[in-house]
């Protein structure tokens, strides 16, 4: 009897836990190796570089303490410009994309015909490679021969030089960002489709208005999708680089100089690696802080139970 108990075949739950820890490590070992080589090492190295004057001239990094950080905060106007541009870009994109995508997803959730065609259309911009899309947008926004101003002319408006004017360039980029946010429409649509119809029917019986139903049923039950989309959109838009780098290079007059573009310029145009590493660490702390704030204030309000 005692012997039988020790027989692993009789203890299907415990023998997997205790006798085979090696198998678990075996399977996750590629991640552990990659984590050390491609995450831990660069992280520590980046922190170290940020305290050095590592650049194209000083190829052997020399410790300069907090100099880079002091310069950043006190003597680099581009740092503040790029921070405020990035926050403005992320905030406006968040508002416009969220409202627009929920609106479209809501329409699509109402038993429309040709759903799969519409869904494909709104998802389509996601398929266009970011470089192809950006170059096409440069051409669309061409002040004289572009489609945008051509269409505006039809209704008698003389369009501006979108990407070359500091007043409009940022809004053009946000507009393009909303155009490319179809991934979110799909996520919201799945959220709408998961809301049980009975809830609306019950609300109808109680005489709830359309607006009440939206605030009391739809929005709370959509909160997991909203939460997911808001968090990913903030993190991604604060790191936005490619579209802006291709379309405006941060110009005109630094009006679209996003944080990541400034960082790239410092690192790979000026080869100021130490300084750029300090920029990267500020970015990391900024994103970390924002994410924690979002989790603290929003995560508790998300309703997962149905």
């Amino acid at each position, binding site marked *: 009897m005692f012997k039988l108990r020790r027989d692993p075949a009789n203890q299907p739950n415990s023998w*997997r*836990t205790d006798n085979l820890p090696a*198998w*678990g*490590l*075996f*399977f996750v070992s*590629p*991640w*552990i190796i990659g*984590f050390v080589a*491609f*995450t831990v*090492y*660069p*992280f520590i*190295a*980046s922190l170290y*570089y940020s305290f050095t004057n590592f650049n194209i001239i000083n190829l052997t990094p020399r410790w300069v303490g907090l100099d880079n950080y002091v310069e950043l905060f006190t003597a680099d106007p581009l740092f503040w410009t790029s921070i405020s541009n990035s926050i403005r870009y992320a905030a406006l994109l968040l508002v416009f994309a969220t409202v627009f995508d929920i609106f479209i997803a809501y329409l699509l959730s109402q038993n*429309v015909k040709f759903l799969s065609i*519409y869904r494909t*259309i*709104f*998802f*389509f*911009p*996601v*398929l*266009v*490679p*970011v*470089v*192809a*899309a950006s*170059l*096409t947008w440069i*051409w*669309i926004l061409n002040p004289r*021969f*572009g489609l945008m101003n*051509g*269409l505006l002319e039809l209704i008698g408006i003389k369009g501006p030089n979108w990407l070359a004017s500091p007043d409009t360039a940022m809004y053009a980029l946000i507009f393009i960002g909303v155009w490319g946010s179809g991934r979110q429409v*799909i*996520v919201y649509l*799945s*959220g709408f489709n*998961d809301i049980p119809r009975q809830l609306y029917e019950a609300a109808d019986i109680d005489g709830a208005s359309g607006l009440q139903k939206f605030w009391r049923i739809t929005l709370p039950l959509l909160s*997991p*999708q909203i939460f*997911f989309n808001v968090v990913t959109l903030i*993190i991604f838009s604060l*790191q936005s680089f490619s579209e802006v*780098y*291709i379309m405006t290079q941060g110009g005109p007059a630094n009006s679209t100089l996003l944080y990541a573009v400034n960082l790239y310029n410092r690192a*790979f145009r000026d080869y100021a*690696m130490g300084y750029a590493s300090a920029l*990267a660490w500020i*970015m*990391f702390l900024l*994103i970390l802080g924002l994410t924690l704030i979002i989790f603290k204030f929003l995560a508790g309000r998300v309703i997962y139970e149905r």
Partner: protein
Amino acid sequence: MAVVQPAAPGRRAMTDEERNYLLLQRLRSLIKHAVLIIFGIAFMLPFVWMISSSVKPNIDIFEIPVRLLPKSLRLENYIDATEAIPFWQYLWNSTYYTIFATIGSVLSNTFIAYGFARVRWRGRNVVFIIVIATMMLPFQVRMIPLYILFARIGWLNSFLPLIVPNFFGNAFYIFLMRQFMMTLPKELDDAARIDGASEWGIFWRIAVPLSKPAILTVAIFEIIHTWHDFIGPLVYLRHPTKYTLSIGLRLYFTQYGAEWGLLMAAAAMFTIPMVIFFFIAQRSFIEGITLTGLKG
């Protein structure tokens, strides 16, 4: 205009209230479709403009007023586009990068996710939390040291810095596949163990075949990601023979301005593989996005 509604057999005639309700429903449906169609067209316009410009002769490109659809076709733009820059070389580079990055992602993430989803070991949850936490680290922090590291070991101007890290897993894909593998019934593993299968056998003969939808999702995401990738090639591929299409397209800009017709033709050829790919894999695509959005 009075709409005469004949009373259906066995039913009373509609009251005014019911009629108004039906009318309202129809009006709402009409508005809904109108809004969707307007936005739908607006969303497709950039793509229409890309294709339309790609077949316009140069003289029509710079025509005022702007014409959405071309009045004459010049399909030679597509041939000229492949000759103005080393187009086929760049297309091949993009394809090469995509194939190997995807192979690496599929292999490593399936393997790693199995270790988190199906094998129990001490410390598993702690390590998994670390995996999730790495998702929040911006690429920019790792970019500079990795660049210096790869430069020192002589990997610049090769695809190795872009491909090799893919063989070591990615937090987002590990998360996605783990969530999927957790839903597979545990009884299958136990049954296989009683039949004498090893842990490796269970992974290879049970988990992998059953995880096909998740594997496909990872493959789809990675194919799109790599094909689109701009910053990776921008940082690591400095030599013109190594450019991918993402980097190469800028060569259509000359000091005299852009060759818009050729550029749009090249952009279309760069985009169309993704469109075909989407239509082939559409269902897994949508399911994949839904999966990531829901379980977030």
